[in-house]
């Protein structure tokens, strides 16, 4: 198993966080992992993306120009990363903020209305978890339970957020199962 994943969206959509969760989960499963944010001068607003790698083998280059998977949380991110996904790779699209089709025909596509689902669950901010749940369900980079088990650690001090995020993860996964 060797996964190179880019997660991209607006700053504030929590793309860095779900990237870190995958890395933590991979570590918990004794995989080789790394996580790297792309950083800009204006940390406030603007775009955010990160790279996550999870592998059975040692990891070298921390940058990838042909990720095996991509999660895009908004339209500009789709525009930027669609072309880079390697053939046969996966793209997860937050349909709620992307008003166009994915053009590529040679890759697996998961189109999920993450923001809408999160809004329904009561917090638009959980859209990242919906997308994460969908991604993991499809790609199985790490085990779903490993992610769920991470939640107490991730939301330490903000424990009341756990149920919502857990629900969002599950809904994301369910959405994919029902595709």
């Amino acid at each position, binding site marked *: 198993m060797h996964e190179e994943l880019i997660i991209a969206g607006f700053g504030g959509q929590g793309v860095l966080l779900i990237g870190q969760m995958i*890395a933590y989960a991979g570590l918990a499963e004794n995989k080789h992992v790394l996580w790297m944010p792309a*950083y800009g*001068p204006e940390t406030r607003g603007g775009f955010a993306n990160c790279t996550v790698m999870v592998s059975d083998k040692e990891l070298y280059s921390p940058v990838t120009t042909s990720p095996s998977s991509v999660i895009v949380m908004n339209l500009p991110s789709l525009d930027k990363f669609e072309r880079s996904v390697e053939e046969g790779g996966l793209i997860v699209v937050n349909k709620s903020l992307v008003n166009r089709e994915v053009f590529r025909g040679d890759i697996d596509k998961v189109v999920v209305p993450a923001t809408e689902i999160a809004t329904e669950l009561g917090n638009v901010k959980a859209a990242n978890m919906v997308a994460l749940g969908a991604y993991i369900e499809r790609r199985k980079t790490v085990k779903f339970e490993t992610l769920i088990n991470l939640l107490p650690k991730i939301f330490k001090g903000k424990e009341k957020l756990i149920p919502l995020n857990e629900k969002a993860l599950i809904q994301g996964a369910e959405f994919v199962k029902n595709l």
Partner: protein
Amino acid sequence: MGEKVLMKGNEAIGEAAVSAGCRHFFGYPITPQSELPAYLAKKMPLVGGVFLQAESEISAINMVYGAACAGVRVMTSSSSPGVSLKQEGISYLAGAELPVLVCNVQRAGPGLGTIQPSQADYFQAVKGGGHGDYRLITLSPSSVQEIIDLIRLGFDLADKYKTPAMFLADGMLGQLMEPVDLGEYKSEIKEKPWALSGCEGRAKNTVTSIWINPEEMERHNIHLQEKYAEIKKNEQRWENFHFDDEAEFLVVAHGSMARIAKSAVIKAREEGIKASLIRPITLWPFPENAFSSLKSLKKILVVEMNMGQMVEDVRLVVNGRIPVEFFGRAGGMFPTVEQTLGKIRGLIK
């Protein structure tokens, strides 16, 4: 072996420093190393240490000079423009033979440049950005785990040789998060009878870098050179990656760039190209011993995140024995795995 934890490169610098017994940090904010001071601002008070934000990089390096005079393990950190400002201070530290660790999490220049990663301060670190004949032990990590290891090593070597050491990372490594094993680490803190502590029960101590009489100044310089020769003999460190008796092509790269180059070497091997890699870990002393036998090699490719700096040291050690080519990108851009692979393929012609 302890438990592995995920850590950002910049935070790992801080954690490793504390674990190496460093309780004094003086610095001035600059991107892309800001997580380090933030980390130490939180941590130092908890371990009885000192975190002080100086009014400038110049003040910071001179506070470091003072703390080193007083005999404690001390560190400062900055990024490229800030490190340029420290050059006078670094030359003073070398002249006064003070053990300190200076971190440069490089960004791209020249000038204000951009905050994206770069390796363009190689020359500054290894040839001497400051004035006079001096050298800095210069360590280049390639993973977050190695950040931990080399920060500790940096303090130990600085103390051992009574000389400033430079920890030369780049913005990519600073931001990278990887699992690390902090392990059990016990640094042997050397006695420093020369340190300033008040002259109770002994003759006065003096720390200075002035030798106004040229005969004395030359003697001091020769002493420094002897020390540097000793370091060169003992402390060369590098990693061989698929570098064996059959290798035909050798890539030389350090730090983050070596990570990318390794991926390219693996792909080249998959294509049947007998590629290999040497990754200098000590940039100074440059690991000349790594190149002692070039065996079956046909060509060398040096890859850097700059316009060609370490390539000169490779050429100096290869001294015309085989061709040395260069590939680099600058300004926060860096050679990709594909580009590097392309250059390796190009060596065959």
